[in-house]
């Protein structure tokens, strides 16, 4: 049952990922990215990361993508003429991509045996509950959390500065 669901979501996310890369229109790319995000959110749920799933939906599918679409609308760039400017680029990219895919395949599929015993994730664990996450955030990882806020401040200041008129 879960396996089927996973297969569906995996297919969806991968195809939408390809959609991002291959769509000539930035807008379509953005939309397929949304799809990708959502499917990943569900997978997060499967992995018992409820809060993250939510965050994923809100932050990404919400804020970020809106921002993207907004900017696209603002700039409305003409549809790219050619996906690849020169074939060498494509060839080289393909080689590198496949290389990584190969490595990943060997690395992860050959993993079934002996990853600290089993690779089974088990079921019915309640890990990412708000409580536990909250505890982790505010007790265990307080410092990184605080530092992150600084990152956000910087981003805000910078974005305002850059996009403000002359």
């Amino acid at each position, binding site marked *: 049952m879960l396996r089927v669901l996973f297969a569906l979501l995996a297919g969806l996310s991968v195809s939408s990922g390809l959609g991002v890369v291959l769509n000539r229109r930035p807008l379509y790319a953005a939309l397929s990215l949304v799809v990708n995000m959502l499917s990943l959110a569900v997978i997060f749920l499967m992995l018992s990361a409820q809060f993250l799933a939510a965050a994923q939906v809100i932050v990404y599918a919400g804020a970020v993508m809106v921002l993207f679409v907004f900017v696209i609308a603002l700039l409305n760039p003409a549809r790219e003429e050619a996906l690849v400017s020169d074939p060498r680029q494509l060839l080289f990219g393909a080689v590198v991509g496949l290389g990584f895919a190969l*490595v990943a395949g060997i*690395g992860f599929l*050959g*993993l079934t045996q*002996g*990853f*600290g015993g089993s690779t089974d994730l088990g079921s019915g664990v309640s890990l990412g509950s708000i409580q536990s996450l909250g505890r982790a955030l505010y*007790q*265990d*990882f*307080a*410092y*990184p959390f605080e*530092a*992150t806020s*600084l*990152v956000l*401040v*910087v*981003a805000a*200041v*910078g974005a*305002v*500065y*850059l996009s403000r008129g*002359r």
Partner: protein
Amino acid sequence: MSPTDLGLAAQVIVAATVIVLLLADAFTPDDRKSVLALVAGAGVVLALAAAVAAAGAGVGDPGGGRVLFNNTLAVDGFAVFFEIVFLSLTILVLMLAPAYLDRRHIQKGEFYILLVAALAGMMVMVSAASLMTVFIGVELLSIALYILSAFLRQEERSQEAGLKYLLIGGFASGFLLYGMALVYGGTGSTDLTHIGAALKVVSGDRLVFSVAGIGLLLVGIAFKASAAPFHAWTPDVYEGAPTPVVAFMSVGTKIAAVAVFLRLFVVTFGAPAVSSRWTVLLGGVAGLSMLVGAVGALRQRDLKRMLAYSSVAQAGYLLLAVVAGNRAGMVGGLYYLAAYAAMTFGAFGVVALLVRGDRDGGDISGLRGLGYRHPALGGLLALFMLALAGVPPTAGFMGKLFVFVAAVKAGYAGLTLIAVVSSAISLYYYLRIVIVVYSPPDNPRRPQAADPLGTAAVVVAGALTLALGIFPGLLYDLAQHSSLL
């Protein structure tokens, strides 16, 4: 207060300074923004005082340093050493920047906010005790620098620098992050102490994950250190970015990255099964950097690009200390990093002071006769070039000496020879600058006098460069105290 408290205080003060600057920026009129430099300076000086106090209180002594916040933040001699370096660097940049921004007619408060924020990022990086902290530090630094590189927002080169840096940087942090994920997967933890412990025992797939992850980590951090072959962004960004920013980032980013290498790789990933892998890789990267950097700089016409390539080569020497992986390497590395800070900042500082009008052109032919038109700046530039070339009696030489000793001790004959060759090549472009500076000028026009504050900053850097070269004892003791090994 205990030394660790003081060390932590330094960070808190810096973070607070960011906030204070935010507020102050809101309440200062547009024509008085340079006041913010003072505010920032005050905060940084305060932090520096705290850090020095921490060092004085013996944070470097055995048992002096502690790991705080549930293994996410290490406040030890190592961290404090670098915090001192970064804080002093920032002070110098704050002396250099205002007049520059005035010259470029873009005196904006955000500059100081972002500068201090970037400083905070560096400090987080060097004191990180957890992968998470490392990542945040890197991002905090990077994002601030993305913006600072594009700070001349009207100017195409600056925009180009910013966007290039941002895109390739994001790409790189993707790798960095995935590497961290793999390490996490392999060791089951994000904090360095546990990782270090786990790496000694893990085997099979978990070891594979860890090592692969370490490989990607290496890639990500080598990018920050602008080591070949992950250096491609460096020349373009350095050329386009505002020069004081370059002075800041070329020193800060590289030092922070190498510091992370020292803490993360030499210490945490020190387990033989692992280090046997990454030393090979890092050795390759170091050798490649030395050669590519040295060779790449030969034919440059723009001083900033030349220095960019030379910084690639310098990254090679710095990584040599990391690869050596012994105490000598650690101490020598610390020494060389401090020396590198002084001389590189100085070099870019002189370039910044020479910036006229609307373009950050470091055109080498424009330096002709500088030594006579502007004896102070010319002499300093020559000094920094000689220091970067490793000519005694300058800090650059002492650093090189200590690093060579470390490399020989660790038995890296081949790398040492590469270092020798690249240093010999590098003499060509460094000394060519010296010659140009002292060759008769074709047009005897005098530039308007440089701003005293900025000159003072460069003079300080020059004094440090010489002092560290002639009296290495001063810094060497501190480095020994701050070593992690």
